[in-house]
């Protein structure tokens, strides 16, 4: 199994979620994140003082998938999250040793 992690633009979340649902993904976990990268941050001015915020808001999606589905999942995220502008984000996958559903203690693919 693999853990696919994707960093995307926040306003793309709905699209990505819908696209993943379409291909049968039943679960995922998201966290609010801040990204630093090529995409510039911005400036904020409070009472005349400038502050540089070089982190931009991102959504971090995590989902564990069967080896067989990984490519499809990545492809789907790629398509649905892309705007073509700098800052679209990254996807990476890492190996998973074990996956368990807490409710039932099912393991492996059954736990997805």
């Amino acid at each position: 199994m693999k853990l696919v992690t994707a960093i995307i633009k926040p306003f793309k979340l709905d699209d990505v979620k819908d696209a993943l649902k379409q291909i049968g993904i039943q679960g995922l976990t998201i966290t609010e994140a801040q990204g630093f990268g090529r995409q510039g941050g911005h400036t904020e001015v409070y009472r005349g003082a400038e502050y540089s915020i070089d982190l931009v808001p991102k959504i971090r999606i995590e989902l564990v998938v069967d080896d067989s589905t990984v490519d499809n999942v990545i492809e789907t995220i790629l398509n649905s999250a892309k705007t073509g502008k700098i800052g679209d984000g990254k996807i990476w996958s890492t190996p998973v040793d074990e996956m368990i559903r807490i409710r039932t203690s099912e393991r492996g693919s059954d736990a997805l």
Partner: protein
Amino acid sequence: MLAVTYIPYPSWLVPGDNTWQLTAATLVGLMSLPGIAVLYAGLVQKKWVVNTMLMAFTGFSLVLLVWILWAFNMGFGTNPIGGGGGTGIMHFFRDMVSMPHPITGAAAEQQQTSSFSQTFVPFHFPTSTFAYFQVVFAAITPLLFLGSVIGRIKFKAWLIFVPLWCTFVYAIDAFLLWGGGYLASEGAVDYSGGYVIHLSAGVAGFVAAWVIGPRLAKDKAHAVPNNLPLVAIGAGILWLGWNGFNGGDPFYAGVDAAAAVLNTNLATAAALMTWLVIDMVGSKEKKPTFLGAINGMICGLVAITPSAGWVNGLGAILVGVIASTIVWFAWNYLPKIRPFSKVDDALGVVFTHGIAGLTGGLLVGILADPRMIEYGVKGKNYAGAKSSFVSGLLYGGGFHQLWEQFRAAVWVIVFTAVMTYIILKVVKFICRGLREPDEVLAIGDLAIHEEEAYPRETFAERISSVPTRQDDRV
């Protein structure tokens, strides 16, 4: 009291009246700042909070300047531009306003107030008091319709729109209904601004939302408010501030002021509970909601405004129940049909102010009780001839008042709509557009003001302006 040894007042001044009027004006001012500013700030999306608040603060400031420099005398001056003569349609069009001029001089500020309409009731305070009381009304009006256009109007366009609208819409309606103009002289009444303020704000907001175009589709679809306690703060200040709004309009700290305050609260309580109960039995979710209750509250406040001191307590409760019910159904069903389905009135001002104001204005013609006396009162000082009261259909007044209220409503709706449209076209020309560009809209506050409502210190690094001292202790 006669033993008071030193009297620093001119003979026409009554300190109790002056105090009430200044206090009432301050309460009305608080309804705008911070009232409406934070009520709306709580209702908009997080990314629009700063923009909304700054438009409220600047709108208030601009009207203050415009009003004192020229518009007060347009609405409440003594000198109709047409000379005050003529009858019928001539009267109407020749005398839509009084001559504009400032009231910034020492004499103007300090003399007893008088307006074209005050032939029989002299007010016992100076022009400063009267002008200030009137300006907080003029100032809240654009702040109300701000709710229709938030989330896309260009900030600079707002700065130009507000002074023009105050001059060419508000001052004229004020003269016609309050300043002694045609509608007033025909008998139409508007106790504290159900038409001049709320109906007009509802119409102006709706037209402006239509002319400026809708928010980004994304914003519209994700339009969740950001902070309900902020709404509660604004709402509470609105409710109690309305004691000044309606209580100040007899311009005397007398019996009718007290009745207006009580009636305002009765109508509001009834309207809030009405909306809540309809939500509980009639909405899809059958649940009581806080923002629903606040909508109902606003309906009650708005609807009682045109009649506060002319209905009795029972009438006030009816006004609240009826207006809240009508607006509830309008709110839930009208957005499905044209033109409402086509116009993005962001916070629904056309409903809670426009329709509520219209309902309240018409109800004057039905529920006004002639025993509710604005100026003359029974007792030793009873001034029968100068008494001011209104008779509605249910209290033997026949259809006369209802007809006058209807005519005035038609005027306010049509005039406000047309003028708002024209003014916006002018503003569009001056500002090269009425909307912020879409990429700015996608970001909101940060793009327009480089500020956000709830900044996160963790990720901020000061880069300029005041240099950081080298020798700071760490």
